[in-house]
C-alpha cells in the first residue's frame, strides 16, 4: 500500500516540466488575450468618448451657426456673431424694427460675439468677454474646420483614434470625420446676399 501511495502521490520531473510549460503557455495566452481585450476596450471606449465629443462640438457650433449674423471661420478658431437676444440680466429683449426691413434686439448694430477655440487640450466657447466654458476636454488631437459657404456653413471635426500603438494613420484620422451642414437662418451682416 505504501509503495502504491508514493507512486500515485508524486510526479516525475518531466511531468512537472511539461505541465509547467503548458500552464505557462496557457497563462501567457490568457494574459495576452486579456491585455489585448483591455486595450481594445479602452480604445473603443476612447473612440466612443471622442465621438460623443465630436457630436457635442458639432451641436454647439450648429446651434450658434443657425442663429448667426456673421461667421469668421478658421481652423480650431471660429468666431460667430449672434443677435443680442438677452439683456444684461439674461432675459429676452423685445425686438424692434431696424428701419431697413429687418429686426434687432437691443441697439441697432449690436450683437454677441461667440468664439470657439482649441487651447491646450480643451475646446472652449467664449461669449464676449465672459469666462470661457468648456465644450470638450482632453481633445488636443481634435481638429475642427468651419467652411463658410455663405448661406450654409459646414463643419468637419476629426481626432486621432488610438487603436494602433504606433499612432493613427492619416486615413484612420480622416475616417473619424464628423460632418455637419448648417443653414444660417438669419440674413448675414457680413456678406451681401441674405439667407431668405
Amino acid at each position, binding site marked *: 500500500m505504501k509503495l502504491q501511495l508514493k507512486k500515485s502521490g508524486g510526479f516525475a520531473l518531466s511531468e512537472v516540466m511539461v505541465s509547467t510549460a503548458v500552464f505557462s503557455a496557457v497563462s501567457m495566452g490568457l494574459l495576452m488575450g486579456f491585455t489585448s481585450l483591455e486595450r481594445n476596450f479602452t480604445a473603443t471606449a476612447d473612440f466612443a468618448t471622442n465621438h460623443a465629443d465630436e457630436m457635442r462640438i458639432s451641436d454647439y457650433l450648429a446651434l450658434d451657426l443657425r442663429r448667426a449674423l456673421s461667421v469668421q471661420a478658421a481652423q480650431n478658431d471660429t468666431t460667430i456673431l449672434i443677435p443680442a437676444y438677452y439683456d444684461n440680466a439674461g432675459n429676452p429683449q423685445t*425686438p424692434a*424694427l431696424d428701419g431697413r426691413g429687418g429686426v434687432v434686439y437691443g441697439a441697432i448694430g449690436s450683437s454677441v460675439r461667440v468664439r470657439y477655440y482649441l487651447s491646450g487640450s480643451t475646446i472652449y466657447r467664449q461669449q464676449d468677454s465672459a469666462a470661457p466654458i468648456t*465644450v470638450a476636454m482632453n481633445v488636443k488631437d481634435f481638429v475642427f474646420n468651419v467652411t463658410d459657404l455663405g448661406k450654409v456653413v459646414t463643419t468637419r471635426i476629426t481626432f486621432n483614434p488610438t487603436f494602433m500603438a504606433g499612432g493613427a494613420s492619416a486615413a484612420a484620422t480622416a475616417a473619424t470625420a464628423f460632418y455637419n451642414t448648417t443653414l444660417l437662418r438669419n440674413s448675414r451682416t457680413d456678406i451681401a446676399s441674405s439667407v431668405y
Partner: protein
Amino acid sequence: MQLAHHSRAGGSVLVWTMLVMVILSLLAVEVLRAVSGRFQVGVQAATWQEALLGAESGVDLAVVELRKSLYPAPNGAWQDWTTVPGNGVLSHGLTTVPNAGLAGSPMNIEVNVDAPAQLKDPATGWQYYRIRTLGSLPLSGPPRVSYNKEDNRLRKLTLLNQRFIDGLFTSETNDAHAARRIEAIIRPLGSFDQAIMSVGVLDLNNQNIVIDSYDSRDPLKSTNALYPYNDRNADGTLKRQENGNIATNGSILDAGGAHVYGDVSTNSGTATGVANVTGEQRTDFYQDPIPIGAPTWTSINPAPSTVTNNTTLTASATKGAASSRYVLRAIDLSGPQTLTLAGNANGSQTYIEIYVTGDISLTGNAQLTVAPGVSATIYFKGDVDIAGNGLVNTNNQPGDLLFYGIQPDTGQNPYVKLGGNGAITAAVYAPGHDVTVNGGGSDGHVFGSAVGKTVTMTGVTNLHYDEALSSGGLINNYKIVSWFEDTR
C-alpha cells in the same frame, strides 16, 4: 473514502466555475455600464435634435396661418387657434404629433404668435409678427444626467424640474423631456418682390432685354428717386443695382439671352438662355402667389359707372376715402380720349382706387394719365389692353400706378397686354392673367415689376425694377427676418 475524494474534486470545480462566472459577470457589468451610459447620451441627443424639428415646425405652422390670412375670405386662418394674434394678444396653438419620437413617443409643437406694436412699420403700415415656439419630446429611459457635464450644459434636458418658468407654454412640465424654444420674427412681403415673376412659363423671347434694379428710396441707388442709368456714386460705384431677379413658380423659364442683373429661379425646373445672368441660378424657388379677391368696399363714389370718353376721376388726400373709390363696368377709350386720375393742384399726396369689373381697353392714342401726387391702384377682373403711349405716370414712380388682377373664374383665361413706345412706369400683379409687356422698340424702358400667370416680354429692351416696390402694395407673403433659439 472514494466518495469523499470525489466530493472534494467537485467542490474545487464549483469554486472555479463560480470564480469564472464572477469575473465574467463583472466584465459584463462593466461593459453594460459603459455601453448604457453612451446609449443614454445617444438617445438624449437624438431626442434633443428632434425637439428642434418640432420647434421649427411650429414656426412653419404659424407662417401657414399668416399666409392663409392673405387669401380672400373665408380663408380659415387661425381656425384651430385660440384667437387672431394682435398687439398684446397671443394666439396659441398646440399640435401633438403621435409616434414622432423614439419608442413611439409623441412630439408636442406649441406656438404663440403675437403682433407687438413696436413691430409695425410706420413707413408702410405693415405689421411684423413674433412667433415663439416650443418643440418637446419625452425622454425614454431613466431620467438621469449624462456622465459628461458638458453634454448637460449644452442640451439642458428637463429631468425633474422644467427649464422655463415663464409660463409661456403649457406643455412645459416637470416630466423628463427635451425641449427647444425658438423666437422668429416674420416680415410681410409685397406683391412685387421680384422684377418679374410668373406662376407658369416666363418667356423673355430673345429680345436682348436688360433687367436690373434701382431703389427710388435710396440716393445711392437712384438719381432724384429715378432710375440712375449709368450714374455713379462718389466712390465710383454704379448706382444701379443687381437685384433684378426673375423667377417662375413653374418649371420653364426662357431668359432668352437677356442681360439679367439678378438671380434667375425656377421651381425645380429648367432655365434656358441664361448666358448673361449675373446672379445665381436657382431651382428651389417656391412662391404660390396669393390670388386677389374683388374689393369689398362698403361705400364708393357712384359716378361714373363706366368710362368710354374723356373722363376725370378725382383722388382724395385720405387713403380709402369713399369719394376716391370707383367701381367701373369698363374702361374703353380710343383715339385721343383720356382718363385722368386727378389729385390736388399743388401735387400733394392723394390716393385713388378703381375696381373695373370688366375690361380695360386703351387703343390708338388713348391715355390713362396719373396726375402729380396721385397714387393709383386699379383692380380689374377682365382683360387689359393698353397700347401706344397708353400709360402716362407723371410721378415716374411705379409704386404710384399699381394694377391688380382679380382672380378669374374657373375656365376663364384673361390677359394683360401693356405696350407702346417710350416708357411704362407701373407695376402689374395678376397671377391669374397672362401678362405680355411690350416695351416699345430699341429705346423702350419699363420701370416697375410684373407678376402674371405667364409672363411674356416682346420688344422690351430694358426693365428696371424699383426695389421700393417690395415694401409697398398688397402683402403677398411672409418671410422670416429674425431667428433665434432661446438657450436659457
